[in-house]
């Protein structure tokens, strides 16, 4: 710790602090453009100048000078820093004047206006006139992809975007070339950036040089309603802010949550919003004479009730999809219990995870922030870059900070960090479990090893084996100690952990998804309820009566006999549990389109038609019932602490190793759910990623 005096006030700060951090600690605000907490220090904008007593007689850049660089006074007094002297004000005004030499005065037509750092700080340090007669510098706009729009004349060369892409995203596609007045930020090759985190440069850019292309000229920040919510595009549960105007979502921004997404969000999270307004189900449909026809809610409920009454409980099934909230799964499970139906599943892909084996067996126990504490990581059958881009950024952060050894069993993809490749199949995993490979020793020697198992690896015939092998590796390498649980399941859908928590799995004697497929194809399943489940083989349910509850007209809606229009995550308050078992709630930002209703309300109304009404009439009563049965849902944002014994019980090396390749189930990062498939922006990104479109702007 070191003592330092800021503006006359003496404080104690850790001696690795920079002057800027020390000033903030003392409550003095320091303006900055290039400095960012999560990026390396560049020190090139010079806006954060402060006066240092006893130092050289010139202002010092507070972001790049550390507290321990300062010398104490002659009698051992604490070094002194000033942030509000006339010298500091004059120095910052000088910097601002230089920045504004070439910055265009186009705030009225700039998308950044209203949330622009330069605009804000010019209020404090700008001068009211210009001393320059010369023309302003003009810079050609660059094409860097369909998501980020560039107006390079506005760039002030803070290089935040360059540092973000190289350090966090791990792509070296953006750089600064030239020097002095000729300096330019460019991709040089005029190619689209290839990162799935590239949208974050829009937030990082302190001016309007990098702005959102899909959002351009659509709204002003001060006319938007900001709603804090949770993302459901992947199982990370990124904290987001939904900006809406009237009944329309205009854009999605990240919120800071150190335990989940820090302050980054993936491109799918950020640019999904145009999918929220296309292909929407806005009225109930009932199939009459082989054609879906618009119907009233009562007719739709009556049709479902007729179909249910015609058959018996063992011929009814329910499958929950990737975007379902906990409340609606709880409500649907309630209906199924009343009907005596045992065929339930919330794992459309058919993974081997089961709530009966303990909660620790299906979550990322150490938490997403815990990845940074790991000192050896084994990734099994997962491509975290596609399944959870934010988790991949965490692994990269850990790898950059400490060089943690990482090994991969599964697909050999570019993950933006170096890893040891151990093989593709289950046998390679068995070799690690048996200690036959070098990396097994690394894991055994590590104090906090982490085994990340992708949900995709747990599906298929070898799913149970992979779970057993991964558990035994975790047990054998000491990942299950009292203060560290390194067993981590990386899910790829927002609904999954919540579904497992609420017990949306086959009851005793019930069929799972694969079983229901077979039964439906064989004519033994008459009615199936799909709660937003689109990623299943609809061909099997051709002869069954399909009730689809969802928000978008995707595969499920096309195969349905009755469509009950639900709403998306921005249009309801729902609980989601992320892959680390963190319970979070979305907030309603806008209302659903047309006649669409919140999913739990649809199910509550349907229950009255099917017989006995569910015992709750509003969301609070539903939550009361939910918390009574599953108390942990009430602990919103509380990190999960689960008993590692559940994993030890699973640890068993199977006698016969099945030969099966472990690979990620996600082929296309941009098109993983019905909302993304309805989005034109996502379609363009997907095409670009596949190498379809490869042209520059003009």
């Amino acid at each position: 710790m070191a003592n330092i005096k800021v503006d006359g006030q003496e404080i104690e700060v850790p001696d690795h602090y920079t002057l800027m951090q020390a000033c903030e600690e003392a409550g003095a605000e320091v303006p900055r453009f290039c400095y960012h907490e999560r990026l390396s220090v560049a020190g090139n904008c010079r806006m954060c100048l402060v006066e240092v007593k006893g130092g050289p007689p010139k202002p010092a850049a507070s972001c790049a000078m550390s507290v321990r660089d300062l010398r104490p006074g002659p009698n051992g007094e604490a070094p002194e820093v000033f942030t509000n002297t006339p010298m500091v004000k004059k120095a910052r005004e000088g910097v601002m004047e230089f920045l504004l030499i070439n910055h265009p005065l186009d705030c009225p037509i700039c998308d950044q206006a209203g949330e622009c750092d330069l605009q804000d700080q010019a209020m404090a340090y700008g001068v009211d006139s210009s001393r320059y007669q010369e023309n302003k510098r003009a810079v050609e706009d660059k094409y860097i992809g369909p998501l980020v729009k560039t107006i390079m004349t506005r760039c002030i060369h803070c290089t935040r975007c360059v540092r973000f892409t190289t350090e966090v995203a791990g792509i070296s596609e953006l750089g600064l070339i030239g020097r002095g007045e000729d300096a330019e930020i460019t991709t040089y090759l005029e190619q689209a950036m290839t990162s799935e985190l590239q949208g974050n440069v829009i937030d990082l850019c302190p001016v309007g040089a990098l702005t959102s292309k899909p959002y351009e000229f659509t709204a002003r920040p001060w006319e938007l309603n900001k709603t804090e919510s949770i993302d459901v595009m992947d199982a990370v549960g990124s904290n987001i802010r939904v900006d809406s105007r009237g009944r329309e979502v205009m854009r999605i921004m990240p919120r800071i949550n150190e335990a989940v997404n820090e302050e980054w969000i993936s491109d799918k999270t950020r640019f999904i919003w145009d999918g929220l307004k296309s292909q929407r189900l806005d009225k109930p449909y009932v199939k009459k004479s082989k054609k879906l026809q618009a119907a009233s809610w009562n007719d739709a409920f009556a049709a479902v009730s007729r179909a249910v009454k015609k058959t018996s409980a063992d011929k009814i099934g329910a499958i929950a999809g990737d975007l379902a909230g906990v409340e609606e799964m709880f409500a649907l499970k309630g209906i199924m219990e009343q009907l005596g139906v045992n065929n339930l599943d919330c794992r459309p892909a058919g993974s081997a995870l089961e709530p009966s084996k303990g909660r620790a067996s299906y979550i990322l126990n150490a938490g997403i922030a815990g990845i940074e504490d790991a000192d050896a990581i084994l990734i099994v059958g997962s491509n975290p870059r596609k399944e959870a881009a934010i988790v991949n950024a965490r692994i990269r952060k850990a790898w950059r900070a400490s060089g943690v050894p990482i090994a991969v069993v599964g697909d050999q993809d570019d993950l933006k960090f170096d890893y040891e490749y151990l093989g593709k199949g289950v046998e390679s995993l068995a070799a690690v479990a048996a200690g036959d490979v070098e990396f097994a020793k690394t894991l055994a020697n590590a104090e906090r090893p982490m085994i990340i198992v992708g949900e995709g690896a747990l599906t298929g015939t070898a799913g149970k084996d992979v779970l057993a092998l991964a558990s035994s590796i975790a047990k054998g390498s000491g990942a299950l100690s009292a203060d560290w649980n390194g067993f981590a399941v990386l899910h790829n859908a927002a609904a999954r952990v919540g579904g497992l928590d609420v017990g949306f799995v086959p009851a005793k004697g019930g069929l799972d998804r694969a079983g229901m497929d077979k039964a439906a194809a064989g004519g033994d399943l008459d009615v199936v309820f799909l709660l937003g489940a689109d990623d299943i083989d609809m061909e099997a349910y051709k002869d069954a009566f399909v009730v689809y509850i969802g928000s978008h007209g995707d595969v499920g809606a096309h195969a349905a006999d009755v469509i009950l229009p639900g709403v998306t995550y921005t249009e309801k308050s729902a609980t989601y549990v992320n892959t680390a078992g963190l319970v979070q709630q979305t907030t309603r930002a806008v209302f659903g389109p047309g006649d669409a209703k919140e999913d739990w309300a649809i199910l509550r109304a349907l229950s009255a038609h099917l017989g006995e009404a569910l015992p709750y009439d509003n969301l609070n009563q539903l939550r009361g019932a939910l918390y009574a049965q599953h108390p942990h849902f009430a602990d919103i944002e509380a990190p999960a602490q689960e008993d590692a014994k559940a994993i030890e019980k699973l640890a068993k090396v199977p006698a016969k190793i099945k030969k099966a390749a472990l690979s990620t189930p996600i082929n296309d990062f941009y098109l993983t759910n019905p909302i993304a498939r309805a989005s034109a922006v996502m379609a363009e990104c997907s095409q670009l990623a596949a190498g379809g479109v490869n042209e520059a702007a003009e």
Partner: protein
Amino acid sequence: MKQLFAEIFIWWHGQTMGTRLFTALNGKFVGEDDAGNKYYVSKKDPKKRWVTYNGPAEASAIQAGWHGWMHGRTDVPPTEQNYQAKAWEKPHHENLTGTAAAYRPKGSLLEDGKRPNVTGDYDAWSPE
């Protein structure tokens, strides 16, 4: 001949028989514009000028070049001016207000076109 019948039976649309007679007796033909409107000046009084419209009587149908002459702003009719229209000049047409061809903004109930998207619009899925 058709014009003659029109003047007898639907005289309220344009030139009447009286005008025809008056023009034949007193008028001196000056010229005709691109739309076929004919301009006359009185034989006795050169300040007295009139037009017979090709089609319904509509004052705004007088073309820009003839407008000055008709209103006595100039005594030189366009036929003597040899004016060449610029490439960017659109052909003259009359004021369409009050007719079926009148301008209607996008989204007007009288215009069958679709209005531009506004906040809250969405594309609904349909089974087809």
